[in-house]
């Protein structure tokens, strides 16, 4: 009765400083962060750092293996693969971040309100969320893209709108657990209004979980986009690693570099976002108790 430390507290309360300190010690996570940043820079400066115009077809240089002039070789249209990789980063990251962004922008408020207010509000919202979760997302995406076409915006919107439920669930759980904490009750007893409690007291604590989740969602969105493009359902006018893989299908025997490099890039990006997310999660929830 007198010692509360043994009460199972699922959520650990962290301060920003300690959080980053713990994160920095996780080599894999830092690696993931650096690679992510590298990719972001790649995407931003694609037009500058690409040695060739990615659309430029040169039938004299078809299926050239990697060489000093074409570091990653050329594809079946003679296009420089390295340049296409750089430009492909834009699409991947754009869709990745935007989808995760939409999911977070929709999921966080919905989940927070549901978790904080509970009762009827919670029941209604969660039924809605359940409906979304029941739908097989990938097939929904296929359906929408087949009907409405595979423009970048469509893909982005669809992935975002099918992944917000998991964010909402997560935020709901965070709010459910945080709203019972003493410091929230203390805030109420001081006179803090509901709105301010949600935004100023609980949200800064709960948002960590959403950030971790968003990181994983970026990885997932990139995977989904690549898959869609590979199947031919993405935006045909854009340069996407998925499309590059599609092009590389037939020629994989004679020009394997066509498939290796895009595949490698996809893997690398997804791994780095996952490591980043994992690292954030570990920094948030320390597993070792030192006492």
């Amino acid at each position, binding site marked *: *009765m*007198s*010692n509360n430390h*043994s009460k199972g507290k699922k959520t650990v309360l962290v301060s920003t400083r300690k959080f980053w300190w713990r994160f920095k*010690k996780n080599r894999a996570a830092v690696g993931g962060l650096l690679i992510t940043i590298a990719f972001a820079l790649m995407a931003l400066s694609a037009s500058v750092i690409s040695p060739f115009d990615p659309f430029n077809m040169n039938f004299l240089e078809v299926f050239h293996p990697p060489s000093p002039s074409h570091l990653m070789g050329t594809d079946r249209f003679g296009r420089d693969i390295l340049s296409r990789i750089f430009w492909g980063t834009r699409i991947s990251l754009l869709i990745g971040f935007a989808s995760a962004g939409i999911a977070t922008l929709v999921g966080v408020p919905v989940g927070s309100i549901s978790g904080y207010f509970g009762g009827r509000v919670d029941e209604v919202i969660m039924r809605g969320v359940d409906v979304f979760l029941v739908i097989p997302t990938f097939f929904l995406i296929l359906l929408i893209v087949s009907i409405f076409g595979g423009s970048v915006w469509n893909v982005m919107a669809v992935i975002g709108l099918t992944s917000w439920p998991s964010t909402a669930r997560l935020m709901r759980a965070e709010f459910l657990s945080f709203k019972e904490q003493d410091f929230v009750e203390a805030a109420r007893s001081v006179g803090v209004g509901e709105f301010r409690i949600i935004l100023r007291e609980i949200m800064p604590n709960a948002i960590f979980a959403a950030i971790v989740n968003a990181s994983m969602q970026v990885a997932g969105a990139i995977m989904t986009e690549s898959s869609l493009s590979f199947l031919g359902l993405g935006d045909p006018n854009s340069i996407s690693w998925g499309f590059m893989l599609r092009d590389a299908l037939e020629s994989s025997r004679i020009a394997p570099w066509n498939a290796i490099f895009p595949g490698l890039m996809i893997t690398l990006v997804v791994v780095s976002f996952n490591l980043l997310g994992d690292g954030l999660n570990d920094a948030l929830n320390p597993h070792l108790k*030192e*006492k």
Partner: protein
Amino acid sequence: MALLSVDNLKTYFYTSRGIVKAVDGVTFEIDRGKVLGVVGESASGKSVTAHSIMRLVPDPPGKIVGGQILLGTTNLLSVDEAEMRKIRGSRIAMSFQDPMTYLNPIVRVGDQIAEALIIHEGLDKTSARKAAVEAMQMVQIPSAEEREYDYPHQLSGGMRQRILLAIALSCRPELLIADEPTTALDVIVQASILELLKDLRNRLSSSIMLITHDLGIVAELADDVCIMYAGKVMERASVDLVYSSPGHPYTRSLLESLPSLEAEQTKLKSIEGDVPDAISPPSGCRFHPRCSYAADSCKEAIPSLEEVERGHWVACIRYDQLDAKEA
């Protein structure tokens, strides 16, 4: 010869923030059939000491880096793990503070007690079950024959603590280590566990190492007391000596700061400051920043336990000058 002899025990935790010297040179003895109360606050090292004796210190990050622990003639720090497993539960047993986390939620309590008997005494299931019921009766669980089929969550906090004690005592260990047996319980349940422990002390031949922060429980139950602070022993003596003529300033201040039922005080004598940081403790005597008798010499040397009178050990270099000053 003492049953348990701990000599200069050192257990350190190697963490990313630094080395935590949780137990830093602890020495004490427990005689057969006696109760030793190990008293300390948080970060005093009392619980780690118990875990070290049982060799249950998580490694990493913890490590027993020095000292000796003799159970009879066996040095517990030099036996291998297989041998230690035979000792745990049969020669030394431990009960813990929070029964809910130490009991398996999906196993009936009778079976959990029987498990120890099957492993250590080689009993078959039926005899083990019978012995388990007897153990439950020994810890005064009413209707033990029906209770043995209960699951932990069906029992109250006090009952669960009794089950932990039953598990520990089922194989009649030579030493029972009771880690904060009353702390998480209601007042009246605490009293019943305290009375139970008194009863067990009288009936069984086991020695008891009672770990607690509650000076009241120690006074009622223990024969000898060992006061720990920041990983070191500050004072060690029989319970009568410690309470009637406490030697160490920490012990004195602790006793004076207790709100008691007897005295009529308007203001409690409190101890200044906070419990020290485990990673960078104060230099010299760990208690000196909070000690009203501290002098400059206290910052330099770490005081060792000196026998200031027969059976009374105090770790304070200014012990002789203490009585002169106003307490």
